């Protein structure tokens, strides 16, 4: 491919890099080296593929959403069904990859941060599969709104650490996971759940998740005989979007569209749209677009969706934005809720609130395109975990 990112030191243009404490640098250099070896090791790649097939249930289907397509009266809408993966979201693609790598590096303990709990569950699941110790860091606020996933993680044998600092959401869970990692770095592998963090995480997570785009590309070529006109995915840190986009980057006819969480609106101070409304800064080991004040203090993000409730974004998205290769738009809580209900009623698919953001953008995008055109949407996860949040928003008591 002609697109080659990141550079050898983990920079995506001005973004990315490795902004961490010295204590972690040797561990990151070791991880980078191990990952480099595994990337070209046929035995690693075939092991990864086997678990994706037999354990995760890949390939995930590409589904033509006929009623949704008719409803919008524009382009044909295809859903990449990551919600049908084992554990109910795309997150497991990456945790399988990272934990197979951890085992090869001889690490018996894994840690993870989690927002919505999907990455925590996916990490706890694969840790259980391989008999590894697992500690998950999760903010108090997220523990409250995702209690189902907390219990799932505990059933899977993970210890869930409640994080009370800061806003008690994903950002703070990541701070606490970093602190724990600094203390236990010698025997612990940190399974980062998104395409952010210090190099090599953004690259590694992208590579593991790019199975989404590779499969979808082959599937759409198979049914439509052509590439899609647009590929759409929601963006918190941006792992499902990066996984979908990456195999299409060199296909300039394919519009890549990332949908950020606008919360109560990007004009308010309650949103999570780091690209649309943020500035460049450094947090959690990488340089990227961040929500921050005039003094470089990180601001609180807000989204109804716990998985998008993060004041930053993966550095490769920051670059794709600046290159103009991908477009970044945003969708409010209310628009996401409406899309959540629409997909549920019209296709019998209950999407995660995160994924509902991608669906919501179809309302604007699909009618602009003609019926011959094709939109590929990543349905990154299923919505069972969000039932309580949706009921609360609808004023329904369960």
């Amino acid at each position: 491919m002609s697109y080659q990112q990141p550079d050898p030191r983990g920079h995506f243009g001005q973004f990315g890099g490795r902004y961490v404490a010295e204590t972690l640098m040797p561990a990151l250099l070791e991880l980078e080296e191990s990952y480099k070896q595994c990337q070209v090791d046929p035995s690693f790649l075939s092991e990864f593929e086997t678990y994706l097939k037999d354990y995760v249930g890949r390939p995930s289907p590409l589904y033509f959403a006929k009623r949704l397509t008719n409803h919008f009266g524009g382009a044909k809408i295809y859903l990449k069904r990551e919600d049908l993966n084992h554990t109910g979201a795309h997150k497991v693609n990456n945790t399988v990859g990272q934990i197979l790598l951890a085992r090869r590096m001889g690490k018996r303990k894994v840690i993870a941060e989690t927002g919505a709990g999907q990455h925590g569950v996916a990490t706890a699941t694969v840790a259980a599969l391989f008999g590894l110790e697992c500690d998950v860091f999760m903010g108090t606020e997220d523990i409250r709104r995702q209690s189902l996933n907390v219990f799932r993680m505990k059933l899977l044998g993970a210890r869930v650490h409640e994080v009370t600092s800061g806003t008690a959401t994903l950002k703070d869970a990541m701070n606490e996971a970093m602190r724990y990692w600094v203390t236990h770095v010698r025997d612990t592998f940190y399974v980062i759940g998104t395409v952010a963090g210090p190099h090599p995480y953004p690259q590694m997570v992208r590579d593991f998740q790019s199975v989404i785009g590779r499969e979808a590309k082959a599937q759409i070529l198979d049914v439509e005989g052509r590439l899609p006109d647009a590929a759409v995915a929601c963006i918190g840190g941006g792992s499902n979007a990066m996984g979908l986009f990456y195999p299409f980057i060199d296909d300039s006819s394919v519009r890549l569209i990332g949908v950020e969480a606008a919360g109560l609106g990007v004009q308010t101070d309650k949103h999570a749209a780091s690209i649309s409304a943020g500035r460049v800064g450094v947090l959690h080991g990488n340089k990227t677009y961040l929500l921050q004040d005039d003094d470089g203090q990180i601001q609180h993000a807000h989204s109804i969706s716990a998985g998008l409730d993060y004041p930053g974004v993966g550095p490769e998205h920051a670059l794709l934005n600046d290159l103009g290769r991908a477009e970044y738009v945003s969708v409010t809580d209310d628009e996401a809720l409406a899309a959540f209900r629409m997909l549920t009623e019209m296709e019998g698919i209950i999407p995660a609130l995160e994924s509902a953001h991608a669906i919501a953008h179809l309302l604007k995008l699909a009618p602009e395109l003609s019926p011959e055109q094709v939109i590929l949407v990543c349905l990154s996860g299923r919505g069972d975990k969000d039932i309580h949040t949706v009921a609360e928003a609808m004023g329904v008591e369960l």
Partner: protein
Amino acid sequence: MSNITSTLNALKARGEKALITFITAGDPDLGTSEQIVHTLVESGVDLIELGFPFSDPMADGPTIQFASERALESGTTLRGVLDMVARVRQHSNVPIVLMGYYNPIFNYGPEQFALDAATAGVDGLLLVDLPPEETNELHPFLKESGIDLITLLAPTTGKERSARLAADGEGCLYYVSMTGVTGSQKVDAGSIATSVKELKELSSVPVAVGFGISSPEDAGAVAQVADAVVVGSALVKLIAEFSDSPHLLDEGRNFARQFKAAI
């Protein structure tokens, strides 16, 4: 030679060890921090480390996390911290090192920061999340302004990397005494001794040791091998405890004297 190196070398020549104290600027407010700095200097502290607050202090334990929160709540900005340094400078030549995270400085603008920090009288900068691999956009400006960018080394830093980092050291080297966040565990003087002895052979600048030194006894043990001992969380804890008390400065004075006597 930089104010940091020359101060530490002068102490060394007299057979003394340096006491470095860390406080978070703006905890509980900048005016009080300024008074605390004067008190510490009067009480024998040889170098002042001033933390500038960040919303997401990933390498800090709860004590300094809470101090950062209090400092931000009191309205502390990086500009405000520089102004405070300028005020301290009118009365004292004590070496001052700013310590914190990179984002506030990146946001301020590396070039402007280097100019303003030098004007204020800052001698050194220690950034927890800026390893040598990422210093390109900041270091040239600091060098031009005569501000030392202090290198951190950790117990996990391998031999080859240590040699490389130590050879490039500016001001002093800062050896992180344990794998962990600030203020978390008891120090192990034995293992520190081995590492610090090795570092001293590799380095042309003095070696300071910090993280987890909480008692005069710890400080005394570490001072057996290090050129300088850094005390942070223990002092920050004391400030939190007495921030509303008229005895705050007396407590700070006693604290500094006890630690200075122990090393």
